[in-house]
């Protein structure tokens, strides 16, 4: 069957099997920033933004994304122009092995998109589904708190109120 989606702003058509999971389709198409840590929806390494919501792509049938807008970590920023979350994750020490990081970047970005002024509790809540075995989360939460400030500044600048 056919699957039509927009990935990071690009329209894509795939030939899929009804049993295919979205994670496999994405990784197979080169979106390898989307990681596999469990395949059971329990770790968040495979998180993507689908129509504005962070979801675990390992437990979604690809077919369920039909017509959807998908953002993966690759669509959030790149090494030349990283997003504030990506920048702060690096600078604040939120990254060790980095395997959980694409999922965390996605969850945090979805949070900030929806709620530009999250409290620390809301950040913790949003990241609760993203397991990280390396960092102990301390510096990841710091990083996202800093990214919230950073985003506020750039948004303010854009509106001319900074």
């Amino acid at each position, binding site marked *: 069957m056919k699957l039509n989606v927009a990935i990071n702003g690009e329209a894509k058509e795939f030939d899929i099997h009804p049993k295919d999971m979205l994670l496999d389709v994405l990784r197979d198409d080169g979106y*390898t*920033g*989307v*990681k*596999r*840590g*469990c*395949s*059971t929806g*329990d*770790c968040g*390494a495979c998180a993507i933004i689908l129509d504005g919501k962070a979801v675990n792509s390992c437990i979604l049938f690809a077919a369920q994304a039909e017509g959807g807008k998908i953002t*993966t*970590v*690759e669509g*959030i*920023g*790149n*090494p030349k122009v*990283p997003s504030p*979350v*990506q*920048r702060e*994750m*690096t*600078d*604040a*020490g939120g*990254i*060790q*092995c*980095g*395997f*959980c*990081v*694409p999922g965390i*970047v996605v969850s945090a970005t979805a949070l900030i998109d929806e709620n530009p002024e999250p409290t620390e509790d809301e*950040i*913790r*809540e949003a*990241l*609760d*589904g*993203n*397991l*990280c*075995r*390396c*960092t*102990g*989360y*301390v*510096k*990841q*939460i710091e990083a996202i708190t800093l990214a919230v400030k950073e985003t506020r500044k750039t948004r303010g600048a854009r509106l001319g109120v900074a």
Partner: protein
Amino acid sequence: MSPVKSPARPKKPARPVKSRNSAAGFKVVNHNVEKVDGICLATGVAQFVDDRKFPGLLFIKFLYSPHAHARITKIDTTHAEQLKGVRCILHYGNVPRVLHTTAGQGYPEPSPYDAAMFDSKVRYVGDRVAAVAAETSDIAEEACRLIKVEYDVLPAVFDPEEAIKAGAPVIHDEPDLRGAHDAKRNMAAHVGIEVGSVEKGLAKADHRFEDRYELGYAQHCPIEPHVCITYLDDRDRLVIRTSTQVPFHARRICAQVLQIPEGQIRVIKPRIGGGFGAKQEVFLEYVAGLVTLRTRRPAKIEQTRAEEFYASRTRHPHIVNMRIGVKKNGMIETLDMKALSNTGAYGTHSLTVVCNCGSKALPLYNKAKNVGFIGEAAYTNLPVGGAYRGYGGTQGFYALESMMDDIAEKLGMDPLALRRKNHIRLGESSPVFAALGEGKEGYDQAMASCKLSECIDIGEKEINWAVERKNHGRGPVKTGVGCAILMQGSGIPGIDMGGATVKLNEDGSFNLLVGATDLGTGSDTVLAQIAAEALAVPVGKILIYSSDTDFTPFDVGAYASSTTYISGGAVKKAAENVRRQILSVAAEILSEKADNLACSDGHVVSKKTKKKISYRNISLRSLYSRNQFQIEATESHVSYVSPPPFAAHFAKVAVDTETGLVKLLKYVMTVDCGVAIHPKLAEGQAEGAAMNGISYALTEEFIFNARGAMVNASFLDYKLFSTRDLPEMKTILVPSYEPNGPFGAKSIAEININGPAPAIGNAIKNACGVRLRSIPYTPEKVLKAIRRQSAPAAA
């Protein structure tokens, strides 16, 4: 058996002792430079093992034993072979039998050779029976189901204390077994030492304490599961791209099991998604390798999360019996530890982990004149133990530091005062260092840096000890604080070796090639900083490339808290050697003595004339015009001391005495890791380790059914702490300067996983008066203990 002798330490000290004693004046080291791989990880472009495509890739799946102990009497693969898309099936009947250890240690390994790629006997639920390689993973799985296996089921033993009793089923009865202590008694390893006289010491002591502590199974849970891809290169050599901590050991072990020379194998380590010891084990690479050799196709093994739990490696569960004899004044005179490790079905790391239970913990209270240690490791029909961050230290400190609080209570002393009175200090040694190393005798060492007292002082204030010790709150929820102090090591003395190559490019940048394995620890950044400091350039000028057996020098790999200290030592030597070469070329150009020249910010500067010449011009000259040569050096480093980092951990808990639920409110760590090469990464190591230890202390456990099968092999049922469980956490680095380390550094990777179990246990005791001697501190256990305590004493 007493431990075997270690090779003699060379006469000359390995490194001259520097007079410097602080990090002041460092330009790159001790600064939070940008993590070299940070942005590529944050943006998802970093390449992990499975992020490259291999046309024609085969997928490998395993058939696992449903029985804890059985002999395979018949294996019939006819139906499986007929399934369309199946390319290769491996089982004991068609692979070479080479007994080996999967432990991924230096050679010769201190672990028994008790594992075959596939065996005719299975020893735990999850032991491998066969592997199928097929065009898709679904086909491989389906084919596994089609393999018919007949078993002769044998009695199994799950309890390590039962396993070593006479008459227990013998788990390793194969005649070609090598290196196990006494396989007929299921004893994989045994070690014992005694300094002074434990029994006399205990008899003379004013107070004697004796208790038993238990720690169960746990899995490392790197978020990237084990994964490897093998293929043949143009010259028909086997290339292994794998998530390993030990590329060079992986090459050696694969060569051994596949019976081909090391030179026919290349191991590549791309980015690795965490390991914590799990990826020190080499148990998948040779299976994929054999599929590739037989089919001439690329092949992949990617473990599922469930396989990570039941068919990979775990922390060795331990039963630790601790006895301590103290004087009335609180001086510890006698320490005696007896540890029984459960190594599961195979003995990987069995001897060394149990050794470390004593050798890491017992030197902490070095005033004790009598010290005894017996370590034993039992085979059982349960999952296989392996290296796990903390490596015996976790188990040893749990017993020792829990008992310290009981002693303090009995003597009416403050637990911190008792520790202050007894702990090891600067300039001091412990007889344990020489008596007990990793699987053999160790090396004596005196503490050349130690800020443990300061760690205790600072943590005491930060947790508000004096107040919180007495303040338990009103109502059913009781609060309390507890402490544990710790030490570890930096590398394995006399064994661990790292190599590094530094070479200068035309633009004044340097390639730094290291066998050291960054598996997420940040070692690429830390090693680049060490090179940058020694070469007087910003870290951006160092192009680090780590672990590819074809291109980088040897390194034992990432374990034993060795990378910063050992590999960093090699990097520093190589960089200093290159710096000398740069200076001598500059001396030629400037017609000055090299002694009168200094390196500064990518230039050589004359101290007299202030004339400057850039590394770029030095490089251009040496490569292209006069007295041509490549400015480069390879150096190796071994150390005969293992400078311990020190730490004090403080926990504040709230115990709901009606439900037994323990909530961790605050966690404070004060850590002396020498000079932190990258303070933020060092803090991150501490926080990650502590969080893992906290989760182990409170929730993580393997639950087995009566057949010995793990029933909670998923992240849903095996609870790792997440952001919502995170307590207020405070990490304070307490700087010291370790003269034996590169730029004053010691290790920090492991030590902080050892604190939470005792510190939280001590805090629970302080909060509600109950002492728990096994982890995890589940509500059920806590509540039972509370009930038992408040029940009227039985007549």
